[in-house]
């Protein structure tokens, strides 16, 4: 056993060196392959034609979500989720700011990782997309009819929300888990002011299940207390394994410093197999402990369109020691990263990033071992199963640094090898490699449309590479990441296209365009779909109102003017709220609003929508405001002025839009 592992490690090290040089050496030949006309034809989407798939790519440290078309690789949109976004005012406007509220206050940046499309019967259904934030543990919901973030839930008693957001087959739950274990007091699980050296004694993690199938009503249904490891990735079971979720962990060494060395010692770490139906039953029966756990729940009010934030202060926690039969540990080689369940729901595949094989566990063997109570040991009430009793097989020679696996639904699995910078295709039943292809460079996740569901759409695979180097025209030291589109419809994988992606796309999802294309919202019906309390239905309703030191401007925008467009009577010390309603009812005619000296951003207002920008003037004078979105031939004329007078000035509050509209006057709403 130890001889084997020494041999493997030696082999691995040797391969690493070879692969390092090989990856660069063979780059030119592969590029030539890709530029053949066959590949060009397969990715060519003629002008005016649409792509076959929507791809949703995490923006990583941009905190956002990138929308791309496949097979063209066109970047269609960036959806802001966890970070403020000057492009449309998300996180700056009064109506979106509450979405970024947390128990730490307003957090304007986030680190998005794993997008996941909601599912029905184990297949993506295109209703919503969930995505997690690592740094301030959060989960967001993006509505796929508007491509807007509509809900954000903070995860309490956790840090580093990495193993998230993975949905159960009917979107009952989205799961989350602690990547960076933290000290928790025994009674209340509160973070503690203790020595970091007391890691082994004080630090713990949690695995959380978040109710996800009711828009606007996400909640942490229950948390499971787990040992202080780093929980890394997850996938829910499906088919026979529906009701279970699998979470990889590393740092079973419980190191708190220099993890690259200290957390790489153990030959095996664990996959935590969680019977969430069992846990749900415990929680529903009230067999959990309610502990304090302050966390924010933010959502866009469906009626008003305004985001709201509320603070919740406790959460239901289950402990495997008190609630048996809920969590089992599957020993897994060498700091596993990804864990993936094949479309049949029978095989559980781990990516041991320092391992030289890919272990394939059989779900029925796991259940059998649990029923026989064949446990090697017990850690904090969690039974540890025996590796060999779970194994369906090991994939030999899978490349170096296997990380993530997706499936084509035809019996094959595709695994990224980070170190050897390749994707290997292997037969799930036989656990044998059948094909491999280089990627440029160092793929993390990979994505096949529907490739982690019960019915993959096959056809394409996208490698999400971490290193870009020379793939595109260089742009200084900072480069976008690189993706490669690979044709997997035949026996041999073929590189079709290379395209840059914004931020650091960790994971991605893709669904056929037809699933959601025709459900896209084009405008908001101003009469029936805009319940914003500050809206105006027409120019006659516009006006200005003072409430103490708050001044509210009820403004309309339509090609090519604002009403009112001259505002006076603002004084230093006032807070001015511009409530801008876009009166257009025509697709793709947004108007923007920006005012000099605002230390927020513009707001971009969709047809029929109302958005509010707060402006606190800091200087006296007359300041222009204007439309930021080139809306019409007379867009440059779409402007106005606001006058700011000194504190205590007697300039009367007034607003108008010239001779034509003297009526836009004082209001007291």
């Amino acid at each position: 056993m130890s001889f084997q592992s020494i041999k493997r490690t030696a082999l691995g090290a040797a391969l690493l060196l070879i692969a390092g040089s090989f990856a660069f050496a063979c780059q030119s030949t592969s590029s030539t392959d890709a530029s053949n006309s066959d590949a060009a034809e397969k990715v060519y989407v003629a002008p005016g034609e649409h792509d076959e798939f929507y791809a949703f790519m995490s923006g990583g440290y941009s905190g956002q979500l990138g929308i791309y078309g496949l097979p063209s690789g066109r970047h269609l949109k960036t959806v802001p989720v966890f970070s403020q976004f000057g492009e449309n005012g998300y996180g700056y406007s009064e109506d979106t700011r509450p979405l970024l509220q947390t128990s730490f206050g307003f957090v304007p940046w986030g680190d998005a990782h794993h997008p996941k499309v909601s599912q029905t019967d184990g297949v993506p259904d295109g209703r919503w997309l969930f995505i997690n934030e690592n740094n301030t543990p959060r989960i967001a919901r993006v509505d796929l009819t508007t491509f807007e973030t509509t809900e954000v839930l903070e995860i309490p008693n956790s840090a580093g929300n990495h193993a998230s957001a993975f949905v159960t087959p009917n979107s009952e739950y989205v799961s989350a888990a602690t990547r960076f274990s933290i000290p928790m007091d025994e009674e209340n699980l509160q973070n503690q002011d203790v020595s970091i050296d007391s890691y082994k004694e004080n630090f713990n993690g949690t695995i959380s299940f978040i109710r996800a199938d009711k828009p606007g009503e996400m909640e942490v249904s229950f948390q499971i207390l787990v040992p202080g490891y780093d929980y890394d990735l997850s996938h829910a079971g499906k088919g026979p394994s529906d009701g279970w979720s699998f979470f990889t962990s590393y740092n079973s060494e419980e190191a708190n410093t220099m993890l690259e060395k200290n957390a790489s010692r153990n030959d095996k770490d664990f996959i935590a197999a969680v019977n969430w139906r069992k846990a749900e039953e415990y929680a529903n029966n009230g067999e959990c402990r309610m502990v304090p756990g302050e966390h924010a729940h933010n959502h866009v009010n469906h009626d008003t369109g305004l985001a709201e934030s509320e603070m919740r202060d406790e959460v239901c926690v289950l402990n495997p020691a008190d609630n048996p039969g809920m969590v089992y540990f599957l020993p897994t080689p060498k700091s596993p990263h990804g864990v993936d369940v094949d479309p049949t729901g029978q095989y559980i595949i781990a990516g041991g990033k320092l391992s030289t094989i890919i272990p394939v566990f059989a779900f029925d063997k796991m259940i059998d071992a649990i029923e026989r109570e064949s446990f090697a040991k017990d850690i904090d009430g969690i039974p540890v199963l025996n590796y060999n009793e779970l194994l369906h097989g090991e994939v030999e020679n899978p490349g170096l640094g296997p990380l993530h696996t997706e499936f084509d639904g035809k019996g094959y699995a595709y695994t990224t090898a980070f170190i050897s910078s390749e994707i290997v295709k292997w037969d799930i039943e036989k656990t044998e490699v059948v094909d491999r292809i280089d990627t440029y460079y160092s793929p993390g996740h990979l994505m096949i449309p529907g490739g982690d569901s019960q019915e993959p759409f096959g056809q394409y695979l996208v490698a999400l590479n971490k290193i870009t180097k020379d793939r595109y025209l260089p742009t200084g030291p900072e480069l976008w990441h690189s993706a490669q589109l690979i044709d997997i419809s035949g026996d041999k994988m073929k590189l079709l296209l290379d395209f840059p992606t914004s931020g650091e796309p960790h994971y991605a999802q893709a669904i056929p365009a037809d699933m959601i294309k025709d459900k896209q919202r084009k405008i908001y019906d101003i009469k029936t779909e805009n319940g914003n309390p500050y809206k105006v239905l027409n120019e006659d309703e516009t006006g200005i109102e003072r409430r103490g030191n708050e001044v509210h401007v009820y403004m309309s925008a339509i090609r090519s003017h604002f009403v009112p467009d001259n505002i006076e009577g603002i004084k230093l010390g006032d807070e001015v709220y511009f409530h801008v309603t876009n009166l257009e009812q025509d697709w793709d005619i947004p108007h923007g609003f920006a005012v000099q000296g605002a230390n927020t951003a513009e707001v971009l207002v969709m047809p029929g929508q109302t958005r509010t920008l707060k402006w606190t003037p800091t200087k006296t004078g007359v300041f222009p405001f204007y439309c930021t979105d080139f809306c019409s031939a007379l867009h440059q004329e779409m402007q106005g002025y606001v006058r700011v007078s000194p504190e205590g000035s007697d300039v009367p509050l007034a607003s108008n839009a010239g001779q034509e509209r003297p009526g836009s006057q004082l209001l007291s709403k």
Partner: protein
Amino acid sequence: MQWSAPLQSRTRWAVAIAAIALVAVYIFPIWQISLDAPQYPEGLGMEIWVHTVTGENPNDLQNINGLNHYIGMKEIDPDTIPELVYMPWIIAGLMVLGLGVALINRRWALALWATLFLLFAIAGMVDFYIWAYDYGHDLNPEAAIKVPGMSYMPPILGTKQMLNITAGSWPAIGGIIMMLSCAAACGLTAFELFWADTPDQNASDTDTAPSSAPASTDASIDVHPSASSASSSSTSVA
């Protein structure tokens, strides 16, 4: 020409159908105006109904008005067009008159109806022309876009290029049915007066009109020697 002669039974039926067909005017738009511009791949258009003007899609009218304001064209507001108030009544009147013709069963009545109908149709087109001319020429002098010598009168029938927009104007289902109905009224009148008139001698044919109307006694004396054939036809018609 015998103005007071009764109608042939076929004619009576055709008149009744032509009158009833006018119901279509209340169900379908009469006229449609489409605007094609590069920025509107999904199309933009409006429909003129007997009582209102609407967009082809829910917001098209607002969007057309939005575009028109650049050239200073008056806003198209159905609430300010009086024709849309009395047109439904005129059409209803034409329907009632048409049914009346079938009942009165006299050539003069048919001729009167056809004349009124035709006059109405001509007046309608003239009115449409005046509106179109007015919209196209009575432009706000303050308009943002002023092209010297350019007017924007939409076509009455057919297509016309105006700046970036190709405007098309065509009768819609309701209008087509109304035109067919009007054509039927005129055609039937011509038929009755110029063709059905002469062969009185073979009036024994069963096409002769039913004799249920009180005036029909005169009619049978005038035109149809055989009252029995008339009454037999009335049963077959009933």
